[in-house]
Each structure stands twice: as structure tokens, then as C-alpha cells.
């Protein structure tokens, strides 16, 4: 049927003696919106950190379109096509909105410009700058952030900062987008709008999305399939409906 984008096999990491994540297997198919849920401390963000090269897994591996990326550098992984947002927003606060997105475009192979030509302001410099600015504007337009493009990112309201993080991640032209609690702190209207935006960018950019979220309405509204984690291991997986109705999952969430 459809092609596997991300294959995680037996992934695990120890911090000292603590097994934070172990024996995790996940396969995410092309253009899927895949959810990773679980109680606090279940190891969801740790998995994201491994997938983006922040932590080196101590066991297992993961591959993007068949290419093994286990233990590669953050930059290599970004170039291979995995981009992410952060649970606690980590924008470049003292830079304008558009410049945040332009940092994401920094490694774009079509927007090359040597330090030398920037320093001496050669024609390539101006051409690249113009192209980058345009591309950044195109991305900002999708998120309705075009008007605020010259504001400092720290002055944006919270919901818009979350959107800008997604825009900045998209600028790295990812094939797989990891969203860490994209709806956290949003009101129901903003959440509904965010669902639309995520679907829209998936179709526009032909990408696959893996997301962490606590808002169950959001999860059941947008995710095709889910993996539920608890204490660093997989508790359940399947289509969203199956996974959410699993008695084990209900027990883990409600307790008892």
C-alpha cells in the first residue's frame, strides 16, 4: 500500500541506569498524520529528541525513507528531512518573524550564497536574499503571519508563536514534520484552526506528520493512527479509535 516514511525499530535510551525509552517500534506511512500520546513522563519528547539527533539512542535504530539516521548529527538529520517544533517554544526571540523563518531556509540547496559574496555584497548575495525573503513570505502567508513579519517574534501572542515554530520548521523543507504539543495552550477555536493548517501543509508540501499531543479532541480529530506510550514502552497502537478505546490505555490515563 503506501510507503513507509519513518521506521523506528526497537528504539531505546538509558540515562544512567534509568531506561527512559525501550523497545519502541513505530512505522509512519507517507502523508499520514500520526499521533504519539501518553501520560507525562512517558518518553514522548525523548523519542523526538532521539529522532532529531539531540540524544543518541543506546539501542535500536530509526530510518527515514530507508536511510538509517541513528546517531547522526542534528544538522545531517535536518538535511535528510526531519524538522521539529518544541514543547516549550524555542523561537529566536530577538529576531523578527521573517528572520526566524529565514534561518530555517539557511541550508536550502537552492539558496546558496558564499560568506565571501555576502561580505562583499556581490550580486549573488542580493539575488539569494531576495529569493529567501520571498520564500519566507510564502511560508508566512500560509500561517497568516505575513502582517507581523517585521515584529520581534517574542512580541507575538502565544498561539502565533506556536504557528511560527511550525513555519520555521517547514522552511527547512522537511519530509517528516515532528510537532511537540502544537495545540498546547490554545483555545478551542485556535485548535480547530490549527487542525486545518496541519492538514493543509501536509497536502501542500506533501509531508508526513508525527505529533505529540495531550488534547484528546485534537488527537481524535486529526490523527490517522496512534501509538500510546507509558513508562517508556508502547502500550497500544492502531487507528486512533482503536487505540483510544483500548482498556489498557484508558487505565493508564484514568488510573486504577
Amino acid at each position, binding site marked *: 500500500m503506501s510507503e513507509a516514511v519513518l521506521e523506528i525499530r526497537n528504539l531505546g535510551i538509558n540515562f544512567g541506569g534509568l531506561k527512559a525509552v525501550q523497545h519502541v517500534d513505530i512505522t509512519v506511512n507517507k502523508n499520514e498524520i500520526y499521533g504519539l500520546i501518553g501520560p507525562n513522563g512517558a518518553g514522548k519528547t525523548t523519542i523526538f529528541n532521539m529522532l532529531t539527533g539531540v540524544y543518541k539512542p543506546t539501542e535500536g535504530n530509526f530510518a527515514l525513507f530507508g536511510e538509517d539516521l541513528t546517531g547522526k548529527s542534528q544538522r545531517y538529520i535536518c538535511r535528510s528531512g526531519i524538522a521539529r517544533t518544541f514543547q516549550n517554544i524555542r523561537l*529566536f526571540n530577538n529576531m523578527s518573524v521573517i528572520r526566524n523563518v529565514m534561518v530555517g531556509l539557511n541550508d536550502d540547496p537552492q539558496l546558496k550564497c558564499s560568506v565571501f559574496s555576502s561580505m562583499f555584497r556581490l550580486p549573488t548575495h542580493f539575488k539569494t536574499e531576495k529569493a529567501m525573503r520571498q520564500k519566507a513570505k510564502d511560508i508566512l502567508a500560509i500561517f497568516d503571519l505575513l502582517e507581523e513579519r517585521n515584529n520581534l517574534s517574542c512580541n507575538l501572542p502565544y498561539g502565533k508563536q506556536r504557528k511560527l515554530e511550525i513555519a520555521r520548521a517547514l522552511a527547512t523543507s522537511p519530509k517528516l514534520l515532528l510537532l511537540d504539543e502544537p495545540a498546547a495552550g490554545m483555545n478551542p477555536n485556535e485548535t480547530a484552526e490549527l487542525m486545518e493548517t496541519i492538514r493543509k501543509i501536509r497536502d501542500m508540501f506533501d509531508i508526513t506528520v508525527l505529533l505529540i499531543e495531550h488534547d484528546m479532541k485534537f488527537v481524535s480529530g486529526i490523527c490517522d493512527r496512534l501509538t500510546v506510550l507509558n513508562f517508556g514502552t508502547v502500550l497500544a497502537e492502531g487507528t486512533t479509535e482503536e487505540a483510544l478505546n483500548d482498556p489498557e490505555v484508558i487505565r493508564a490515563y484514568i488510573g486504577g
Partner: protein
Amino acid sequence: MEQIITTIINGLSLGGVYALIALGYTMVYGIAKMLNFAHGDIIMVGGYTIFVFMNATGNPIIAAIFAAVVCVILGASMEKLAYKPLRGASPLAVLITAIGVSYLLQSLSQIIFGPTPKTVIVADLGVTKIGNVTISNSSVLTLILTVIIMIALTLFIKMSKTGRAMLAVSEDRDAAKIMGVNVNGIITITFVIGAFLAAVASLFYLLKYPSISNTMGSMPGIKAFTAAVIGGIGSIPGAMLGGLLLGVIECIFNSFSEIAPYTDAIEFGILIVLLLIRPNGILGKKKREKV
């Protein structure tokens, strides 16, 4: 009145030299999060390079170009050999290493050139008289070139890919890495720019004080560091402002013969008072504690 104008122009040109050095301190601090105490000694290396090539060719432009090349290579290799292996080490270890590099460079220069100071007249540009005001042309040249370099640097940082990446790394190194920014490359570029500015500063410094010694980098180095802290360390406009301010203050106090011997003490005193009032410097940003 004439005296005041001359003093201020001399002050601004000395301040320009401090600002060029301070930029190296502040950029490296902002981006690599370390204090490169060997930065002042790059000026000394630039000084000796100018000395060697002035004796060999007699052409100040060739000497200046070679000084820039030698300093840039020194800056890049300093980073590569001494600081890069310590990335992620405790700041104290990096600080001690920087002091070590500083002593290494001073001792090497003593082995090669001996401990006696050398004199080099780079160029005699003469003076210009406008009415009763006498201005040395080298001061004017220093001031003009410094302003041009500062504008070019600001444009580079604000309006280029590399400059944006530098700002991003200084704000959040890990997030920048995840966005695909080549952090090691950016840090190397920062050291190279800093070393280049130090080479330019050494040329201008020699135009003012034509004596080269093993420790000639220490005093301007410390003054420039003071300027960077006064302006707000990590802030590029802060380093420029701090440098110019310190240069003008120094020249004003030096013009009164009774106060002149205490000028250095007054400058560092200003630093202490300013840090009491504004701990982050004039243009430094307050770090907000997040709960």
C-alpha cells in the same frame, strides 16, 4: 575650543580602535559563549607581522594585508586547536585555556623577536589645519575606516544568511542546530571576523603608538574588553558605543596634565560604577528569568 575639537577627534579615533577590538570580544562571547582572553594578543601578532613586512617591503598596504592574513589564520587555528575540543566543557576550563593561549602567544613572540620593544613607523600622514584646529590625518583616516567597517559589519550581520545564522546561534544554539545551521562553521567564521578586526585595529594602533612589544596587546585588549562590557557584552552596537565612549573619555582625561596619570584608573572606575547601575551594560539585554 580648538583643543576640544582635536581631543574629541583623537578620542573618537582611539575609541574606534577599541571598538574594533571590542567587537571581537563581544561577537565571540555572544556566539561561542566564551571570553577569548587571547584576543588582545592577536593585535600583538598583527603588530609584529606589520613590523616584519614593513622592514621587508616598506609598503604599509602590503604589510597591512599580510597582517590581516596572518591574524585570520591565527584566529581560525586558535579556535580549531584550543577551543573546539572544549566545546561543551565547563566555561572555567575554556577561560583558563584562553589565558593559556594568551601566554603562549606572548612567549612565542618573545622567543622569536626578543623582549626589547621594536619601533615601526607605518606611515606619516601628517596633519591638517582647519583654522586654528590641528587634526592628525591618521586619526581622521582611522575614524573614517572604522565607521565604514562598522557599517559593513552591521549590514553583514543583519542582512545576510551567515549573519542571521550567527544571531540564531547566539540566541539558542541547540535550536539553531536542529534548524540545520552549521554551528561549528558559524563559530569559526566569528573567530575569523574577530581576528580580522583585530588586525585592522593593530594597524591603526601602530599609527598612534608606533611601538611593538610582547605585551602590547594586553592594555588595548583589556580596555576593549572593558568597552565591550560597558556597552553590554554580546551586543554588537554596544561594543561600538562602548569603544567610542571609552576612547573619548581617555583622550579627554589625558588632555589635562594633572589628571593624565590616573586615566586608566578612572576608566576602570567608570566600568565599576556603570556595572553597579546597569549590570548588563548600556545596551545589554536583561535576562528575564522564566518560571
